[in-house]
Each structure stands twice: as C-alpha cells, then as structure tokens.
C-alpha cells in the first residue's frame, strides 16, 4: 500500500446544534480502496462533504499529498484530482447525460469559435462521453443525449459514478453508489472500483452493504457518532466485529 495521499485531523462540522462531525480523523492511502461504514447519521456523508468542498468544516485540517490544503468549493477538490459521487447524486435532471458528465468543465471548440465566441464543443463532448462510458463498462447508458430525468434511478446513479470515474485522477469518493442499483449494475460498479484501484486511483466507498465492503475494501474506516471509532481490515476483523464497533458494542 502506498503513502498517505489524503489526511484530515480533528474535523468538526456542526449544523446549528446538530453535530455532524465531532473531531474526526481520516487517512487515505495512495491506490487503496477505503470503505467508510457506520450507522445512519454517523457522519459518513458529512465527512465526505467536508473532504470534497461541498461543506466547509468548522474546524480541523486537511492535507493532500503532504501539504495542507483548503478545499472550500468542489472545484478546489476537482483541481486536486478528487471526484465525488454524492449521496444526492448531484446530477442536473433537465440536462442530458453528456452535459452532466462535463458539467462545470465544458470543453470549448478549437480556434476563434472557442476562444472568442466561447463556443462549446458539444459534438466532441458527446463523443468523449460515449467513449468514457464504454471504457468504464457502463452499458446501461446507451444514448448520451437523453435528459437525465428520463433515466431510471439506477441509470442516474451510473451517470454520477461515470462522471467521477472518468475525471477522478487521484481520489474518487463514492457515497453509497450502489444504493439504487440492481445486482448486475452493482457488480459493474465494484469492477469499476477495482479498475480505478488498478490505475493507482484511491477510492473511498461509503456503503451499508457489508459483504460488498469486505469484497472490495483494503481497509475499513468505522464511523460512529461523528468520530472515527476505528480502522480495521477485512483480514483482521469479521463482519460481526465491524458491526459491533459500529454500534458501540465493542471497541476497535
């Protein structure tokens, strides 16, 4: 396993009186698959949001590749090579699949059309979207010009996953990416996670599905009441152990 690519210390995030994160620590190694598990409301999504610029933590520090960083917008994270599938998916329903894949990083036409008139290369982006989708093995999206709202829940999830996988050069965060997927599509996503890992990309996977977690994860971050209750590996602990730590029945 590689060096530490991303690290956070004592992250605190409160929503009014609700404490989302209560001084959580986090480490992610280069090229690993790290699962984040925990009960509903344990602060898994909040952690991911604070690490990817969707939320700004009230306190705590984040390091990326050894240097302290401030990630106050998702664009900051993107610039670092970090991509995220949020639990809410964050896709734009009225826009088509290709537009969603390239949302916020539209490609312009070459020459004056692009530089002076700022014209987008719509055709090129569609072409690249098709290519990315087939390279990622996502066969559930045949037509990249279909508005996302015409897709099923699972297909929307596929759009969000494809976007993160296509552009995440260093770290990909996935917040319950298989929640709406069928068995076959879930396996596609798990394959995708393995392939990202093979390419040296670190993957953070939030999931409630223990067999899935034990299948793909190198290490497991157990989140409980806004804190990290422990980090274990599938080799060192059983599913029952993990659930016990998650619920506070056992210590890590």
């Amino acid at each position, binding site marked *: 396993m590689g060096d530490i690519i991303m690290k956070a210390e004592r992250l605190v995030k409160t929503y009014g009186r609700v404490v989302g994160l209560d001084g959580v620590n986090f480490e992610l190694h280069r090229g690993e698959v790290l699962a984040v598990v925990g009960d509903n409301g344990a602060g898994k999504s909040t952690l991911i949001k604070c690490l990817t610029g969707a939320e700004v933590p009230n306190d705590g520090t984040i390091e990326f590749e050894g240097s302290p960083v401030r990630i106050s917008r998702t664009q900051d994270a993107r610039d670092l090579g970090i991509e995220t599938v949020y639990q809410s998916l964050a896709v*734009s329903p009225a826009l088509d699949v290709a537009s*969603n894949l390239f*949302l916020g*990083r539209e490609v312009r036409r070459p020459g004056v059309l692009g530089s002076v008139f700022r014209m987008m290369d719509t055709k090129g982006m569609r072409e690249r979207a098709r290519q990315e989708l087939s390279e990622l093995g996502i*066969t559930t999206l045949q037509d990249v010009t279909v508005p996302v709202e015409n897709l099923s829940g699972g297909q929307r999830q596929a759009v969000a996953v494809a976007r993160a996988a296509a552009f995440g050069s260093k770290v990909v965060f996935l917040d319950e990416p298989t929640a709406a997927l069928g068995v076959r599509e879930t396996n596609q996503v798990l394959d995708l996670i393995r392939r990202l890992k093979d390419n040296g990309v670190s993957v953070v996977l939030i999931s409630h599905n223990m067999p899935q977690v034990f299948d793909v994860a190198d290490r497991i971050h157990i989140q409980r009441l806004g804190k990290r209750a422990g980090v274990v590996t599938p080799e060192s602990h059983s599913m029952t152990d993990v659930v016990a730590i998650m619920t506070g029945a056992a210590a890590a």
Partner: protein
Amino acid sequence: MSSNPPTDGIHLADEFLDRSTPASRARDILLRYPALSPAIVLVIAVIIFGALNSNFLAPNNLSLIAQQVAIVGTVAAAQTIIILTAGIDLSVGAAMVFASMVMAQLAATAGGLPAVIALFIGFVVAMATGALNGLLVTRLKLPPFIATLGTLNIFVALTLLYSGGQTVIGADLPALLTWTGQAIEIGGVRVTTGVLIMVAVYIALAFMLGRTAWGRHVYAVGDDKDAARLAGIRVDRVLMSVYIAAGAILAIAAWLQIGRSNAAGPNAAADINLDSITAVVIGGTSLFGGRGIIWGTLLGALIVGVFRNGLSLAGVDTLYQTLAVGVLVIAAVSVDHWIRKAN
C-alpha cells in the same frame, strides 16, 4: 486488468418501448422541444386569423405586429434568462422605463450629452438595476419575487424623481435615440431597425444559452441549484451575470421604446412586466426554472401580438383580447404542469 466489462446492461431503448403510451410519448417530445407547442399555436392562430380577415396577412399588418412585439419581445428575452434560473423579475418594466428616461434626459437637445454617451450611461444604469436585483438575490438570499417587487417600486420612484414626471418628446431627442423607430425596406417589406435589433438579441441569446458553457450553467442553476454547486459551478456568479445581462437587454428595450414612441415618458409601458412574463410562459419556459428555450419566448410574444392584432381586426373588443391572453397563459402553464408530471 482482470475484469472484463459486462455487456448486457439494461437497454434504454427497450425500456422506453415498454413504458410508452401515446400520451407519454407526446410528453417526452414536448419535454425535449419546449418551443413545439407555442410554434403549433402560432401557426394555427395565423391560419385562423388569416382566414377570418384578408387584411391580417397583408405585409403592412405583419410589419405592424412585428413592431408591436419588438419591445415586449426584448423585455421578455431578459425575463426568460431570469426565469430559467428559477427566478422572476417584476422590475423589468420599471428598469426599462428608468433607463429610457436616463437616456432621453441626458441627450435632450438643450445642452445635452452626446447621444452615444447618453445611450451608454443608460446601459450602465440598466445594468446597475440588474446588479442590484442580483445582489439582493445572491447576497441577501431574498426570493426573486420579493426582491424585484421591492426594486420595482424603487425604480418607479427613481424614474419619477429623476424625470420630474416630464415626458421628453421626440423633437428634443438626437437621431441616434430614435433610430430604432426608423423603417427600412427589406425585400418590399418595411421593418423598423427596432425589430431587427430584437431579432439580433434573440440570436445572440440563443447562441449564448445553447452553445456556451455559461448558458449551460444558467440551465443547471435553474434546474437544481445544489447539484450545480456540487458540480463546481459558482451559482452566485452565474446568477449575478444573468441579472446584469438582463439589465443590458432592458437597456436595449429602453432604446427600442424611445424609437417606437418617438418620446420617453415616465409612465410608458405600464403593462410590460406582466406581458413579458406572459410571453415567457406561453413560450413554454417553466417558471420552475431550468427548462425552456429562448425562441419559445419570441413565439410567445408573437402569439400575444397575433391574438391582439387578429382579434382587433376581427372587431373584437380589447377586453376580450385580454381575456384570450389570460386563457392562453393558463393553458400554457397547464401544459407545463402536465409535461413535468411525468417525472
């Protein structure tokens, strides 16, 4: 890589075939082509009014409709980009009149500024009104409806304060300001430069909305603000740019207004606020944001113009014309609801 990608995912096309009924297919088509229904309404209206009265299709009458539509059409273009962001602007008419008074008074002959400068300052003022709306919406997080209800009153008051309630008549205005009312002949048809300017506004906006990243971000912000933010779009910046751009378009409308009425009065164009929203709605743009195209608004403005003109040629009282427009609005919003219900 050890895994080979599975190839038998769910095929989208198959899924559609299974679920579609004639109604749902119609809905899908209308969802994808929001300008389709106003286009159909316009064609039918033109055919009916043309059949009812032979004067309706006369080039002179069509040219008149175009002139009548030019100002509200331009204002409605500004309204469209705001509504696309899930906003609404009740101050468009007041801002336009304010800008027209600024342009006219600054340029009015006795010791006035050069016409170009007056026009320029009018643009700056109109863009400032847009910026004020934008700031209220992005910084104070006011709902656009409330923010622009407030600025509507502010702009009306400013206009009256600034103009002292006086109308500037055409004879006192430099040629540049009334140029938009000049008629030119194109292939035997007389059109005013104002009409051509309106068409240019639409072409420019259609390009910006459909072909640039800015346009795509406008749709994304109106569609789902949080999703747009999470996709790295600076939502507040996009909103500010939209309100300021709307201000610039209103300055153009102000210029057209001066040309058409050959004067600038503080009480001009009283109905233009609601008329602009009417055109946007009839044109198939959703008041919920993120959905619609700019050409639909032009069609919407033309529909209103055609209805008013056609009904008055048919000898129908103005009252009933207004009634017809009201029915159109309700019909258009119902269609929008029906389309959106699918999701």
